[in-house]
């Protein structure tokens, strides 16, 4: 049970007496995402790139200083290569983006052979996002992924929803837990499990997934959605798209609050993050780290600026670390915290 952080106090140290200017200690933005195994996954700052939005990182590395990101979560990777959905794959929504990429990816073997060795030369931790139709496939993916360059795994329960028929995993705490168990048994890598916003009982899914071995929870991502092409009166994007972006922000906030109330492991917030206020909102709601997703499409450099702004914010209120702010706003969901 997470207790409220102590109230933030101004820096109590008296000014130095000598003439030389003394620099304040820089704000510590580091985050340990697996506190039960210190050092297993430590981020330099809490701003991560969300799955799918920076690809496997290489094109982005041409544009931005990739090592200044807290972490990168890759595009969803499957056992076999997938060519993805036919065009068009994207459409705009009033407060977000509709996308139906169809999990295009070169397959796990190609990713581990060609990309992991390059990731190993980066400072930024690369988290491999796993997608599959079955728990067995997920376990097979996880078992192969323990190679230099892969710092952690993110299991996206919502993408398993995409490829399955039947009851979505996020609504079924038992199935979500069994899926997590299958991955956990196959790999010792730090494991983040991503809960879909479609989950109605976030606390139940969060608890069972953590009991099944998740080291951290990612709360957020997109919602199943659709659009219609008015000109031709048919479904756009194959009738099965995902809505992401600012529309999801309040949903992500509630998910983070619920999950943080239910579990002790770090919670990562994801959904419509664009400004520093969005970041701080998620942090005070309970997020130890924050993923930037759709906004990366307009501005791949955004997380780097947000990290700087977060440091400025902490300095401005006299906090030595953003960790002092995690979970300081309680009872967001309106229910009493246990």
């Amino acid at each position, binding site marked *: 049970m997470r207790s409220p952080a102590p109230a933030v106090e101004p820096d109590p140290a008296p000014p130095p007496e000598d003439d030389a200017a003394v620099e304040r200690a820089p704000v510590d933005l580091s985050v340990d995402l697996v506190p039960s195994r210190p050092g297993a996954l430590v981020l330099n700052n809490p701003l991560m790139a969300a799955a*799918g*939005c920076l690809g496997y990182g290489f094109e982005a590395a041409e544009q931005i200083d990739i090592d200044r990101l807290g972490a990168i979560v890759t595009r969803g990777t499957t056992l076999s290569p997938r*060519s993805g959905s*036919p065009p068009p*794959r*994207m459409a*705009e929504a009033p407060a977000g983006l509709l996308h139906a990429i169809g999990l295009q990816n070169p397959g796990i073997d190609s990713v581990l052979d060609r990309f992991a060795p390059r990731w190993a030369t980066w400072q930024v931790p690369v988290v491999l996002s796993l997608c599959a139709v079955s728990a067995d496939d997920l376990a097979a993916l996880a078992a192969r992924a323990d190679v230099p360059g892969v710092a952690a795994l993110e299991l996206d329960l919502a993408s398993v929803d995409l490829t399955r028929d039947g009851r979505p995993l996020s609504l079924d705490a038992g199935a979500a837990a069994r899926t997590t168990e299958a991955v956990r048994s196959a790999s010792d890598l730090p494991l983040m499990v991503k809960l879909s916003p479609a989950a109605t009982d976030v606390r139940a899914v969060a608890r069972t997934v953590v009991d099944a071995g998740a080291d951290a929870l990612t709360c957020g991502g997109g919602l199943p959605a659709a659009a219609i092409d008015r000109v031709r009166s048919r479904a756009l994007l194959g009738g099965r798209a995902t809505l992401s972006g600012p529309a999801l922000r309040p949903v992500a906030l509630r998910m983070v609050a619920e999950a943080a109330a239910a579990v002790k492991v770090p919670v990562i917030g994801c959904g419509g993050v664009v400004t520093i206020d969005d970041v701080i909102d998620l942090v005070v709601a309970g997020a130890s780290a924050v993923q930037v997703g759709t906004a*990366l*499409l*307009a501005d791949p450099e955004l997380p780097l600026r947000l990290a700087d702004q977060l440091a400025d914010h902490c300095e401005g209120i006299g906090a030595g670390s953003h960790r002092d702010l995690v979970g300081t706003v309680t009872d967001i969901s309106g229910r009493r915290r246990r």
Partner: protein
Amino acid sequence: MRRPVTIHGIERARAEITLHVAAGDPAAPWLSTLHVGDRVALLGPLGKPIRLDRRSHHVLFVADAASVALLLPLADEALATGRQVTLLVGARSGTDVYPSSLLPDEVEYVVATDDGSLGHSGSVVDLVIDYEAWADQAVAAGPAWMLDRLVGFAAGRDRRLGVARLGRRTGRRATAAATRSAGPAWLQVFLPQTVGCALGICLGCVVPGIRDGVRVCRDGPVFAAEELAWDEPS
């Protein structure tokens, strides 16, 4: 999201670039409120441009009414470099057609309308056969169905014209190999832009190529007709 725009013209003496924004773009109202001196963030230039072979003296442009503006800057440049230009435009009816008074006099302008109210009654693709021998190169912009038909039509050009190609091997393979090594393809198509990151990261703009998917933003937006895999119009 960033808005895709194309370069409509460049005035080097005044250091001015004119950008073309599609009328239906959701950002058009916002852009229209900007004033001289306002700042906008611009990313580019992106993607691969249309390539005109220096040996091409006769260039054919094919477009639908909405896409004419995309090709006009290239038509101007073709004329400025001493080439002859023919522009074929298809529209629903005569009222949608780009006014000939806005085109340079030197451009031969031929129109097709679905309802027959102006020019040829039918599709602009019907007109191409009259120019395929004359044109050294063709460039097309328009909706997917139009490009699809054009590409299918262009695939038969060599056969129809009885073009013989010198090469080490005979048959279709020789033609394809010679085509690839002989400079830009006869037909280049300008695929419509879709929303996305524009940097080749998000895979939002991928269209089927002959082997793998190709990204319109990074590998295009201009493609040789042979690079793309076309199946039934979607």
